[in-house]
């Protein structure tokens, strides 16, 4: 897919890939073999009729393609950008056996953008069921669940703690990967289905889940994995060490890249080091370059083969000049006399025996300590489920990682309460959260019908 050149794009925050034009989209869609057993659909957490919408694109019927996607997925402009297609639909594509799989993700984005330009039309409103549902959190799980429930005729209100909708789509994923105007427009679509969103409501504080349970017929909790994990090494509280969440929230949601037009600042200096090698780490390292860092390192304790980030993200980071220092584990941060970060000390590692995840375990090489002069450290080694609701809801069963325990369809230990997305699974992907929201919406609908 055509994209901005690395040299150009690190000077702006605009989206990296340009997206397909009409001709290329039709050409690409015509490569589809229309397999009878539809292997691609097995890989789709939100159950899109993939061969169906591809066939429409091949014929040039983009409106029908949009209709087919929208029947299952209310947020295609988002999933069309951030889905790890290579492991899902495209991973199962028959064409992959002969070469390049079909560009399903890109075609989804093409249709979403086509629809965006043309103006989205909400489907006909169903008969109201008279049931009220509260959705906590407006991230990918909450938005999907709310949208699906609204299309079933239920009255849905989303309660959002922050001042913007979208959760991680807004505060976490950078503009250059997922433009905020796209998120806002997808949220507008969800609202056009009849969903209401209340901001500044911190459930557990402003309103309790118990109160929601008396006022609503069911509650869906999709509060995400908002608790940053730390390296737990000395010096982590020095001036200059940020969690990925703080750094990305300042830049993405609070628009610190437009400081002082916007009031929220961020300070990074010349040399930025990101710890971790997942998608969030790539986002941090690439954002640092766009904020003017001269050098942006990724420090990771294993090798490239073990990196959890999508290949495309790693590739983009490399093209932009992010330097990967592998088989390295930090042991302490060192500050100057004022407590401002100036160095990180680390140990070199080598790969030993495989651990329980099947990945070879990194083992420190004794005596290999080295120091690196740095201005900013970004800690991107994962997030845990947000503890606010689990803390305040004593009868909700919680797992050992602080996650809300649910079944496949989001049912929790409390009959009226459903949950899904990162709050239930721990940090995962946008599309898995959307899939969980979708299944929970069905389970809630069934629960409400049984109650009738």
């Amino acid at each position, binding site marked *: 897919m055509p994209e901005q050149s690395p040299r150009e794009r690190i000077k702006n925050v605009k989206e990296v890939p340009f997206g397909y034009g009409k001709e290329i989209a039709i050409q690409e869609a015509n490569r589809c073999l229309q397999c009878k057993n539809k292997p691609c659909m097995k890989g789709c957490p939100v159950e899109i009729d993939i061969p169906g919408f591809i066939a429409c694109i091949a014929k040039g019927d983009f409106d029908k393609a949009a209709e087919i996607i929208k029947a299952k997925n209310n947020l295609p402009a988002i999933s069309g950008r951030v889905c790890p297609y290579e492991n899902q639909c495209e991973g199962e594509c028959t064409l992959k056996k002969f070469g390049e799989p079909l560009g399903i993700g890109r075609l989804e984005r093409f249709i979403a953008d086509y629809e965006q330009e043309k103006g989205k039309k909400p489907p006909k409103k169903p008969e109201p069921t008279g049931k009220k549902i509260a959705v906590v959190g407006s991230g990918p799980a909450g938005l999907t669940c709310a949208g699906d429930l609204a299309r079933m005729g239920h009255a849905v209100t989303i309660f959002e703690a922050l*001042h913007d909708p979208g959760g991680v789509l807004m505060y976490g994923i950078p503009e250059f990967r997922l433009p905020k105007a796209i998120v806002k427009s997808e949220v507008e679509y969800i609202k056009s289905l009849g969903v209401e969103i209340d901001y500044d*409501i911190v459930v557990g*504080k402003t309103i309790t889940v118990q109160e929601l349970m008396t006022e609503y017929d069911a509650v869906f909790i999709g509060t995400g994995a908002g608790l940053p994990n*730390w390296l737990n090494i000395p010096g982590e509280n020095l*001036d200059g060490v940020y969690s990925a969440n703080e750094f990305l929230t300042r830049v993405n949601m609070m628009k610190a890249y437009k*400081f002082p037009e916007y*009031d929220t*600042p961020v300070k990074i200096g010349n040399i930025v080091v990101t710890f971790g090698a997942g998608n969030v780490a790539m986002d941090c390292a690439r954002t640092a370059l766009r904020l003017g860092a001269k050098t942006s390192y990724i420090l990771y304790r294993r090798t490239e083969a073990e990196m959890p980030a999508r290949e495309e993200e790693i590739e983009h980071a490399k093209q932009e000049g992010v330097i990967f220092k592998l088989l390295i584990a930090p042991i302490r941060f060192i500050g100057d006399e004022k407590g401002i970060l100036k160095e990180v000390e680390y140990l070199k590692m080598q790969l030993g025996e495989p651990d329980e995840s099947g990945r070879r375990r990194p083992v420190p090489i004794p005596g290999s300590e080295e120091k690196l002069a740095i201005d900013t450290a970004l800690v991107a080694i994962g997030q845990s489920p947000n503890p*606010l609701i689990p803390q305040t809801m004593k009868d909700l069963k919680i797992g050992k990682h602080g996650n809300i325990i649910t079944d496949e369809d989001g049912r929790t230990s409390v009959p009226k309460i459903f949950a899904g997305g990162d709050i239930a699974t721990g940090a995962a992907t946008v599309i898995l959260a959307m899939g969980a929201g979708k299944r929970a919406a069905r389970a809630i609908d069934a629960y409400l019908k049984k109650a009738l």
Partner: protein
Amino acid sequence: MYPIVEKKVLSDNVKFLKIKAPLVAKKALPGQFIILRIDEKGERIPLTIADSDPKEGTVSIIFLEVGKTTKQLGSLKVGDALENFAGPLGMPSEVKKYGTVVCVGGGVGIAPLYPIVKALKEAGNRVISILGAKTADLLLLEKEIHAFSDEFYIATDDGSKGHKGFVSDVLQQIIDRHKVDMVMAIGPIIMMKVVSNLTKKYNIKTLVSLNPIMVDGTGMCGGCRVSIDGKTKFACVDGPEFDGHKVDYDNLMLRNRRFLHAEGEACKLTGAT
């Protein structure tokens, strides 16, 4: 939007705002805080609640104009409205019967101390209050706190009212005279540090309310992390009150200076000084 229904100028750079926020007012407890954002381009800042009225649906805040956002906030008038006002956040104060408690407030820290003084008194404690400020003009809520105190003292740096010197001098005299069961201290970091150092010698339980820089206020970003007994805690969800004897005050001071350079730049641009 959250309209401002009352404004008072307490001194040149200390302002009082009463804000209509019924849901927050309904839940607010002593010791909790709110996060506000003035407008679309504003930053999110935390302010401890100075008072709340669930019947009226209002929450009051008192703040010192120190940077761009607080100066802008101080320039707003009755009828203006804030874009965002979320809360109540953080854990409430542990209000119970301790016996004799000393409540120490310094500067604008006196404001969040007020609801705590009230609650501790109502819980049956003997409440001794010490308010401190640079000079008499900067003392806040004197009458209000006095009304709920069994003993009431003032300390000013310049001696313009009460004891000339620090609140810790007065606290020392009280400890010499009374058995003190708990000390609650809210004010500048250095004041909380000095008070905690003093009470530690006598092994008196001491609670302080910390005010680190925050962004979301819901435990998500970790910008407000503080070191308590060597362990990292988040002031927004674990605090803002902590055992004063366990706080790493020097680290807190350092972390609160993180964006001073940017504050200067923002103030210069808007003409605020």
